[in-house]
């Protein structure tokens, strides 16, 4: 049997969607994840495809239990995203979505680092289109910042890969582990895409600026490819336990005071990835299983939450908690589906988050990290507050904004319903998911102690919210920007450049004044060349550029012979 890498199907379909008429395009959009899923189901966990190009062994397809699970997940996510965006009449966006999903599949089935790098970059490029497609100035700028950071991540990955290749002579992507400079570069590349603390801001900056449907795709793929890559390359790296613990805790503070509800979900996503990173860092069978299972569940429940907020944005044109409220009156179905997503992310027993997050929690205590465990417990209470309560409460309940709107289009409702059914199904019958995990599962999710403890934690968190809200202590939703790490590159750096620019020009002015006084003939000569009628002015800036390039080339030639 010919082994067909899953990305080929998606790339082929993306080209057809871009060229064929709308109706046919819709059929292809729907058929792609279904056909791809069928092909994947026929694959065994040892399939491989290798190419030898110029003495390099490239492996565009390497199937094992880990990549297979992410493969299934990405097909489900692509299907949900496609159904949710079926009403779109935007070929570029539909086509970019398929290319993006295909690149994520290419990345998880890549058996070598060079192939991984290739898809890593295409992933960045195609996903940026989902941000640009919002067609606002804000989105354009956020998209450029996003793309820049993603390309830097790719650059680090390439540099690390080439150095690793020189050291070991192999491009194969297996366990890497920290220790050398090359592995550090790759770790950093994965860390950027995984939204490590201080490297996280691209996510909360760009995702909320993407289109209604684009954010649903974005939330599924990029960060989960990074979690996969960490699980493959850096499982058992202790630093990840602490990095992950910080990731679970700091974003929830931002989520509490953030007004844009999709940005709240973006912060919440970093919090959820934190749990996965901790699991990968512990590296035991239970912990890695928990991390991977949680990645699987998170794609679906975060997708559901993003879809429900997308539906609200689509119908009302608003996304700020302060402008919304009371929508349960006119969008009861969307409200219910959103609450299912909220219960899942909060890890209520019988909803999907519970069966996977608790594995990580148990593993943390088993491995003797009580402080990290307390941090994760704090984050668990926090996620219930900001994603479980805040999202549905401020969008659908709270004060009545007076907005009355119909339910979203049928395709959106169907996509959200499928996601909600999956959340409840996995939450009540986790054994199918467990059977697909990389290691054998001996974990009992519905143990009385766990269930009771989880209910106590959550219900008392809800009580705290209710008390603070009623007593008026709870901070109101406000129109505002909360500064984060991005302040350094969106405010400090541009201001510094401006200041240096001003300094240079004022020094230049002072120098010119001095020269005018001292040496008028030199100034006249400068004016002759650079003035409005001057030789160099006529062709500026290309003329001078060519001149300087020539000078640089000459200099490099001289240096070469030295």
């Amino acid at each position, binding site marked *: 049997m010919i082994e067909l890498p899953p990305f080929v199907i998606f790339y082929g379909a993306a080209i057809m969607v871009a060229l064929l008429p709308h109706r046919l395009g819709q059929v292809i959009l729907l058929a792609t994840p279904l056909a791809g899923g069928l092909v994947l189901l026929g694959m065994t966990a040892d399939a491989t495809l290798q190419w030898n190009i110029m003495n390099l062994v490239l492996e565009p397809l390497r199937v094992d239990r880990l990549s297979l699970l992410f493969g299934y997940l990405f097909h489900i996510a692509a299907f949900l995203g496609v159904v949710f965006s079926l009403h779109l009449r935007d070929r570029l966006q539909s086509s970019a979505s398929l290319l993006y999903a295909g690149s994520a599949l290419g990345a998880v089935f890549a058996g070598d680092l060079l192939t991984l790098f290739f898809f890593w970059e295409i992933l960045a490029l195609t996903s940026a289109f989902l941000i640009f497609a919002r067609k606002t100035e804000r989105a354009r*700028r956020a998209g450029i*910042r996003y793309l820049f950071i993603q390309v830097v991540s790719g650059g680090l990955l390439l540099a690390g890969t080439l150095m690793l290749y020189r050291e070991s002579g192999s491009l194969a992507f297996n366990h890497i582990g920290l220790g050398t400079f090359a592995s550090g570069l790759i770790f950093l590349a994965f860390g950027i895409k995984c939204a490590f603390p201080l490297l996280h801001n691209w996510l909360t900056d760009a995702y909320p600026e993407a289109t209604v449907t684009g954010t649903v795709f974005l939330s599924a793929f990029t960060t989960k490819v990074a979690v996969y890559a960490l699980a493959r390359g850096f499982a058992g790296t202790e630093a990840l336990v602490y990095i992950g613990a910080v990731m679970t805790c700091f974003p*929830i*503070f*931002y989520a*509490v*005071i953030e007004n844009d509800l999709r940005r709240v979900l973006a912060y919440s996503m970093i919090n959820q990835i934190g749990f996965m990173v901790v699991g990968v860092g512990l590296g035991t069978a239970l912990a890695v299983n928990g991390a991977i299972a949680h990645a699987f569940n998170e794609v679906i429940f975060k997708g559901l939450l993003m879809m429900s907020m997308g539906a609200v944005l689509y119908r009302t044109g608003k996304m700020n908690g302060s402008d919304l409220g009371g929508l*349960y*009156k006119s969008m009861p179905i969307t409200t219910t589906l959103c609450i299912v997503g909220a219960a899942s992310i909060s890890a209520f027993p019988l909803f999907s988050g519970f069966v996977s997050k608790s594995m990580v929690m*148990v593993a943390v*205590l*088993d491995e003797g990290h*009580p402080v990290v*465990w*307390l941090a994760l*417990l*704090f984050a668990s*209470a*926090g996620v*219930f*507050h900001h994603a479980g309560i805040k999202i549905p409460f401020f969008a659908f*309940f709270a004060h009545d904004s007076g907005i*009355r709107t119909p339910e979203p289009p049928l395709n959106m409702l169907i996509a959200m319903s499928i996601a909600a059914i999956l959340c409840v199904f996995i939450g009540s019958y986790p054994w199918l998911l467990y059977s697909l995990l990389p290691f054998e599962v001996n974990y009992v999710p519905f143990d*009385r*102690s766990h269930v*009771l*403890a*989880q*209910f*106590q*934690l*959550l*219900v*008392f*968190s*809800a*009580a*705290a*919210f*209710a*008390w*603070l809200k*009623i007593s008026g*202590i*709870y*901070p109101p939703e*406000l*129109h*505002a*920007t*909360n*500064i*984060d790490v991005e302040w350094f*590159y*969106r*405010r400090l750096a*541009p*201001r510094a450049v401006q200041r240096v620019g001003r300094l240079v020009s004022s020094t230049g002015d002072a120098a010119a004044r001095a020269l005018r006084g001292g040496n008028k003939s030199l100034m006249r000569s400068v004016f002759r060349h650079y003035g409005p009628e001057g030789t160099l002015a006529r062709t500026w800036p290309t003329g001078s550029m060519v001149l300087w390039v020539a000078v640089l080339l000459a200099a490099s030639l001289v240096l070469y012979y030295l």
Partner: protein
Amino acid sequence: MPEKKHLFDDPRNVRSVLWALIAVCGLLFAADFIFHRHVVHPWEALWGFYAVFGFIACTVLILVAKEMRKFLMRKEDYYDGDD
């Protein structure tokens, strides 16, 4: 035409939800004295550990976040024109 009354337009319904929440809190707290929870870490064994932790965690989270606004919050158009 006046809009029909919705579920939470009636303050009595909101109050019932709150009473239900308090009742569930009471039951869950009492459950710690009835059932034995098996534990891995000694902290977990404390009576009402998860309940008290959940309540305090959520309160601390919100109060700290509220304080953070004092030095993190800027106008909505803060970055406009900068980048």
